[in-house]
């Protein structure tokens, strides 16, 4: 594990592994860098991988108040440590964050997006998600914040949530609950970010799984049209929670091309 200090003093932890061109990995909502561990291991065959704990997660520290700009500074600092430019990969809402970093002009060689969870159809129940998460965590109701994420954002039924509280993963989710607000802030109202997508100037690979939800596939179709220099790929049999080694093998091929 390595660490660096972001401009606002926050410690950003990351694992560096492999040798080759640099690629920086960003996790999505409710997870830390362990969610990209198997992807990182596969990519390390061809790349120098920087598998990052976004602020507030894992071994990174946090500095309030949260702003997307601070996370873009974190990404730029990691890219700086990687030699000044790098590929940038983001998964789910981490892909949303990667889009913001690219639009902001971070020195990205190629941008790789896996299923940014935007929606063609409005989802009014998500419009105030960041505030809901913020208020629940501020009130000490972290369990309810996790339930709001799994129930309202992911869309799992109440019966599942009741059982989930008694599953081994629950406390890990509670521990990271304060970052749910951050991903909701990144995603805005979860509607299609037309201007953001159009402003991305770097070559982009955007991928989805053939077994993913229909809305997700339509979103990726639309983003691939909006982003000026986008190549759209589909991994057979994969869903939103993509298998790291499968995605890694595909990216080794796509990024070499």
């Amino acid at each position, binding site marked *: 594990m390595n660490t660096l200090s972001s401009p606002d003093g926050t410690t950003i932890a990351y694992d560096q592994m492999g040798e080759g061109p640099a690629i920086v990995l960003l996790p999505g909502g409710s997870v830390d860098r362990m969610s990209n561990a198997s992807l990182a291991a596969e990519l390390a065959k061809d790349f120098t991988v920087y598998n990052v704990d976004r602020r507030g997660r894992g071994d990174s520290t946090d500095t309030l108040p949260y702003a997307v700009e601070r996370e873009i500074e974190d990404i730029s600092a990691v890219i700086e440590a990687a030699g000044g430019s790098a590929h940038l990969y983001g998964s789910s809402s981490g892909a949303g964050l990667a889009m913001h970093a690219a639009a902001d002009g971070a020195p990205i060689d190629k941008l790789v997006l896996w299923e940014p969870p935007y929606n063609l159809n409005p989802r009014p129940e998500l419009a105030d998600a960041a505030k809901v998460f913020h208020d629940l965590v501020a009130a000490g109701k972290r369990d309810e914040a996790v339930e709001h994420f799994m129930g309202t954002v992911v869309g799992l039924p109440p019966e599942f949530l009741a059982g989930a509280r008694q599953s081994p993963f629950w406390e*890990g989710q509670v521990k990271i609950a304060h970052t749910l607000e951050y991903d909701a802030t990144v995603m805005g109202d979860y509607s299609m970010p037309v201007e953001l997508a159009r402003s991305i100037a770097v070559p982009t690979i955007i991928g989805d799984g053939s077994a993913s939800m229909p809305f997700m596939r339509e979103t990726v179709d639309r983003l691939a049209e909006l982003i000026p220099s986008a190549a759209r790929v589909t991994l057979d049999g994969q869903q939103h929670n993509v298998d790291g080694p499968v995605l890694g093998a595909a990216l080794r091929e796509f990024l070499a091309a």
Partner: protein
Amino acid sequence: MSTVISRDGTRITYDRVGSGPAVILVDGSLSSRSAGLNAGLAAQLATQFSAYIYDRRGRGDSGDTLPYAVEREIEDIDGLVEAAGGAAHLYGVSSGGVLALDAANRLGTKITRLAVYEAPFVVDDARPPIPDGYPEQMQKLITQNRRGEAIDLFMSKGIGMPGWMVFMMRFLPFRAGQKALAHTLPYDVAVMGDTQSGKPLRAQRWASITAPTLVVAGGKSRTWMRNGQLALADILPNAEHRVLDGQMHIVKAEALAPMLIHFFSDGTRLPTEPDLAKGIDR
């Protein structure tokens, strides 16, 4: 984050929070420093103790050396005890509690006090036992790198989660993190040994434990789980049994911490009293 090198050369990564007598916290299945029950508990204990949470071998930032043996994990705990000054209290949750029992049995007086929360023993017919062939099935799935199926097997046959819930688990983002830990599922299967077969526990496995031991069950936990804790306290040489009102297997740190602080404090106050007295005399 700090590291200690275990006897077989494996790097064990740990965090220490707080100051005071050392308490080492042991995770159960599919858990690590960043994903598990113990980080929150360590924060609670840190007011009075040096609380150590660590990545068990094969997890998070720790290394791994094959072949696996429970004895290696006991050596890992021994390494942490040495890093903590040569003696420590030990706490384990779920299958981590069983590992803590084995470690206390082996490490003798190095473990000053031992606490276990809900070691998942199946000692009677209050739930179906872990099926025959479960360890082999788990090992086969991991050997074939079928990590998702290994997790499904653990959730369904190990925990007893209904199939539709097991299916929905696949749609949550932490799935990848669980897959990254899945190869350690057979490790916890090895730790559990024959203790989930529906038969009484064998007292001789932990007959050498000298440390005063606290066995805790959740007041809202399933009957089979509560029966297992009663059975454990019954066979241990020096154990007391407590029920934590309102809690289930995934215990809340704020609920458990006061009980642990009380138990561990009693154990440490006595040896330090002469030192304190000397200080006052002077």
